[in-house]
Every structure is written in structure tokens, then in C-alpha cells.
């Protein structure tokens, strides 16, 4: 279930995946609570350790008081555009990096916002989603490939 989280005046879309990974605005993280003594926790997030202390309603991260609010995420349903493009959609790499996982096969039908692949760059795992409904016409890369910025990843036919 997607949630909207407000943290330090910014809003993030948060999703806890079935495998326990946490996705924040399309970026994947693995978190693990290593220890909890009284109301103090050591949390490891992708190799970074944070010390979180809970006092009253406050969460204190590494000594710094922080607050956040969690709300359900209600996706904005846009009106269907009158002209559904029949043209192919080319998806290219937004940043240089490495393809660590591909979830789809050539010829497979995909729906809008379905996860296609994971592009890892500078230790950040970015999820790439399908922009619309369609069929995978071509996959130009394979797992573990390194890609340049703007390199073609796959083609979707509506």
C-alpha cells in the first residue's frame, strides 16, 4: 500500500514492498533494525547506521529531533487523454548506471505504472515504471549491463 509521508516540509510517496524493501519516490532501500535498547534503536539503511531514539511523540535521529506524518496515498486519476498515442514509447536511462534487475520479457503485456526494471547508480536503486499500457516490443539491454545516460533501455508499443 502506498502512503504519502511528510518529512521536513517535503512530501514523499512511500511503499513497502512484499520483500520488505522500502520504496521512496521510486528509489529502493533495504532497512534493518539491528538493536533496540529501551526506546533507542540502531537502524541500518543500505550500509548507513542511524541511531533513533523515541521520547514522547518525538523521533530523534542521530541526536536531531524530527517529525513526520503518514497519510494514505490517493493517486490523482487524470482524465483519459482523448487521443491515446499509438506511437511507440522509447524508455531511456535517466542517469548513467547499471541494470540490476529486469522484471519483464519481450512480448509481455504491461500496464501503466508497472515496474519494468531497476537501474542502480551511485549506490541508489531506481525503479523504472511503464508510462502507459502496452506490450514490450524490444528490450535493448540485459541484466548487469552498464548503461550511459539517455541510452535506450526498452520500447513499449501501445
Amino acid at each position, binding site marked *: 500500500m502506498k502512503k504519502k509521508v511528510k518529512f521536513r516540509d517535503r512530501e514523499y510517496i*512511500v511503499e513497502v514492498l512484499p520483500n520488505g524493501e522500502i520504496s521512496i*519516490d521510486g*528509489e529502493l532501500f533495504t*532497512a534493518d*533494525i539491528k538493536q533496540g535498547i529501551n526506546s533507542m534503536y540502531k537502524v541500518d*539503511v543500505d550500509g548507513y547506521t542511524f541511531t533513533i531514539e523515541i521520547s514522547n511523540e518525538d*523521533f530523534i535521529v542521530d541526536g536531531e529531533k524530527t517529525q513526520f506524518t503518514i497519510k494514505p496515498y490517493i493517486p490523482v486519476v487524470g482524465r483519459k487523454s482523448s487521443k491515446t498515442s499509438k506511437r511507440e514509447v522509447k524508455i531511456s536511462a535517466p542517469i548513467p548506471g547499471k541494470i540490476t534487475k529486469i522484471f519483464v520479457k519481450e512480448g509481455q503485456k504491461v500496464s501503466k505504472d508497472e515496474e519494468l526494471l531497476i537501474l542502480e547508480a551511485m549506490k541508489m536503486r531506481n525503479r523504472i515504471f511503464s508510462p502507459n499500457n502496452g506490450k514490450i516490443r524490444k528490450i535493448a539491454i540485459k541484466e548487469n549491463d552498464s548503461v550511459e545516460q539517455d541510452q535506450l533501455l526498452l520500447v513499449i508499443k501501445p
Partner: protein
Amino acid sequence: MLSTVLIANRGEIAIRIIRACRLLNIKTVVIFSEIDSSSLHVRMADEAFCLGNGSVQETYLNVEKIVQIAIKSNSDAIHPGYGFLSESAIFAEEVEKNGIIFIGPSPSILHKLGNKIEAKKMAKEVGIQTVPGSSGYINTTAEAENIANEIGYPIIIKAVFGGGGRGMEIVENPEALEISLMGCQTIADKFFGSKEVFIEKYIPSPRHVEIQFIADNFGNVIHIGDRECSIQRSYQKIIEEAPSFISARRRNSLGEKICDLAKNLEYRNAGTAEFLWKNNKLFFNEINPRIQVEHPVTEMVTGIDIVVQQLKIANNERLAYTQKDIRYSGHAFEFRINAEDPLKAFYPQSGKITSLNVPGGNEVRFDTFIYPNYELPNQYDSLIGKLIVRGENREDAIQKSRLALNELAISGLATNISLHKAIIETPEFQNRRITTDFLERNKINQILDHYEKLKLVALLKTHSLLKEKQEYDISKIQERKEDYNRWREQSKLEQQQGYL
């Protein structure tokens, strides 16, 4: 020895000067604006005088009032710190006129060095390379065109009396020349009281290197090493280190020339010569005739207390060191901790410090004036502290900095601590590829964004664990209730059986 020193400043530098005075058994007098009455320098000093409620011009820049307080408090000397009146020849003159020692160069030197063209000329005289440009003031567009064609675009137009990153216009092509010249003249007139400007070749993304020197009143001058200060945001330094990356030979030859310049000037007290370093060439930029924010990195690698030296020089003592005595050991960093949000265009923050964790350990120093429950006003500079760390070498110093930055925690307002954490983890920083456009070049905002998300994930993970625990606790209570009910039923049954 001086018996009383008035400190015409506030914030961390006022505290720094109080500490140096205490080491020499000098009584300290401070001044403060009304809004600063709970500031730490007021609490720490032996005597404090209020400058009233008003603008900076009416308080920390009020020459007349400050000199009056110095007289009233029987101060022998005034230490101006940095910023405020530290480079004001008018202030220094007024101080000396009243028989009080100004801890810094003489008024005439302050006046000379405030003029950037004069300073450049003097540097040239002792054989220091300067940035190619006009040899005098530029008044008309025709003059500007001539010099621009001679040195080639891009060029930079600078206010002769400018400073602090203001009063500078970069011109990329001839079309923009006229309007930039007029704009710069207007700003120069408005902020620096003189519309004089000059032109230099613009050097894009250089390194910023500087050399610290000290001079006594008897013509003895020594240089005490270099600093690398390239990591900046909007012309403000944020990380400095010592030594810089120039070779020891270069440091010494440049240092010697700077000492010659100081001797020619009959300079006295501490000063810093700033250079731009590009393509293996070092160009003289200016001399800052005062103590600098980043002086502690030099103290850490030389062991010399620069503020104490300033006080001793003001006390008419000879330098206790010769050039041969100066030894450099290890590597030091200074991180300027600013109350500003790097994720919101460095917007300055103010408010109550709700908690403060200060890092510690061997060779870790935190110079600050904030304390828990201190209400930070929004009128002044955003610098709230300086984390200074020394290591055996650069790698060791980075590792120590990493630990110290992790320990440092300030609650209540946004700071740039996470920016420092992000910078020191970049390969560019670790491999010494640092220039003045470091932040833009390394997309630091993306890293900060990522770091913010990591923090949020840690929070959410803890939050969900707590929720699970809460649900578990509730279910346990319900279980217990059931047990209790069963027991009650049981006893009822027994009672009934008893009646039977």
C-alpha cells in the same frame, strides 16, 4: 601586558578572542546589541556593554559608541575580529586617536589594502603574479572595451573597494559589456561608497589558496602556511583545510614573497594573502588584513595560537618564532556549521536550539557560541559553529571528520551538517579534485536528497516496528483479560459449588 581588551564582535570569534585573552590574563570587555543579550560572549566576558536596539549600523558598526565604551571601560586595546569593523580604516583611526591600540594593521595600511588595484600593484612589485587586467580604474565603456579586447573574454568587472563576493560582474561577450559595467558601478557606489571599478580576466572554476602571515611591530614577518578554501557556496567558504595542495617549495617561495610585501608595507599583526590557482599558475587576489574564520586549521598544523600572537604583537612584543621554527605536522579540516537549509537554496534559519551534541575526541575542536535553549536571532551571519579536526594525514583527517560530523547534532533548526557529510563522501573530495564550483559540479543536491531518504527509511522502519509492538501489547492485554474472566468464572463456579 595589556590589561583590558574590548572585543568589537559577536558570535564564535568573540568567544575565541575571550579565550585567548584569558590565557594571557587579560580582562575582557564585550559589546552586544539588545537582541544578543543572551548570547554566549555576553555571559563569558568579564564586562559587557549594551549597544541598544537597532540596525547593525547603530550597534556593531557604530564606531563612536564602541570607542566611547572602550574609553569608559579603560580598555587598552580593541580586537575587531572578522567582518563588522575589522577592515575599517576609519574605525582603526578613531581607535588610535583615542590612545587605544587597534589589534590589526595601521589605518593607512587598511586603507591601502582596501583598494584592490593598489594591493595588486604592491604584489607585482615583489614579483607575485597577478591576474591580467586593467592597471587602473575603468570609467567609460571605451576603456572597458580596450582592456577586454586585450585580455580576451570572459572578463570580470570588480568594485575597487568591494569584497565578500559582492560588486563583481562576469562578462562573457562584448554585447553584455556596457550594461555590466553600469550595473557594477551602481552596486559599487551603493555598497562600497565609491563607484570605481577595474577589469580582470575571469578565471573560471579555480582553486582558492591562501597564505597566513604574521608581523610584529619591529619589521619581523613570518609566513605560517597555506590553506585550501575552494569549497564554497555563493562565494562563501564552507570547508577549509591545511595544508593546501601546492608543493612545499612553492609554499615557501610564495610565502617569502608575501613576507617581502608585508615588510615593504610595514605591515603589522596577522594577515592573509589570497590566491587563485588554475592550470598550475597562482594569481594574487587580495590581502585580508584581519584574523580569518578559517585560522584554526593553521593553528592545528603548526601548533601556533594565532589570536594569542595577535595580542602579543599588540602588546609590542617581538615575534617568538623565526621562519626556521615553523614546522607543519598533519592535516586539518574546518567545517563551517551554518544555520541554513542546503535543500532550500541555503535559506538562513533562526529559532531555538532545542538540543546540542558536541563531538569530542583527540584533536577534535568545536568553536561555537550556541548552547541548548539559545534563541538564535535572524539578524546576523548564519555561522553557528566551526568543527575543526586534525589527523596525521589527509585520509586520517577525513576519517576523523566523518566520525565527528556524525556525532555533531543540533536540533531546533536546519543546519548544513548533512551537506558536509555528503561532500566528504564524494570521490572528488577524497581525491583532492576541489575547485570553487565543487557543489554544482558534483550535483551535491542529489546526494543530499538521497541522504534525506535514507534517514526517512530508518524512521519509517522504527515506526512500523513500534506499531507492531503496540499491536502485540494490546493483544497481550486482551489475553490477560480473558484469563481474568476465566478465573472469575471459575471462582463463581466454585462459590456455587460451595453453596451446594
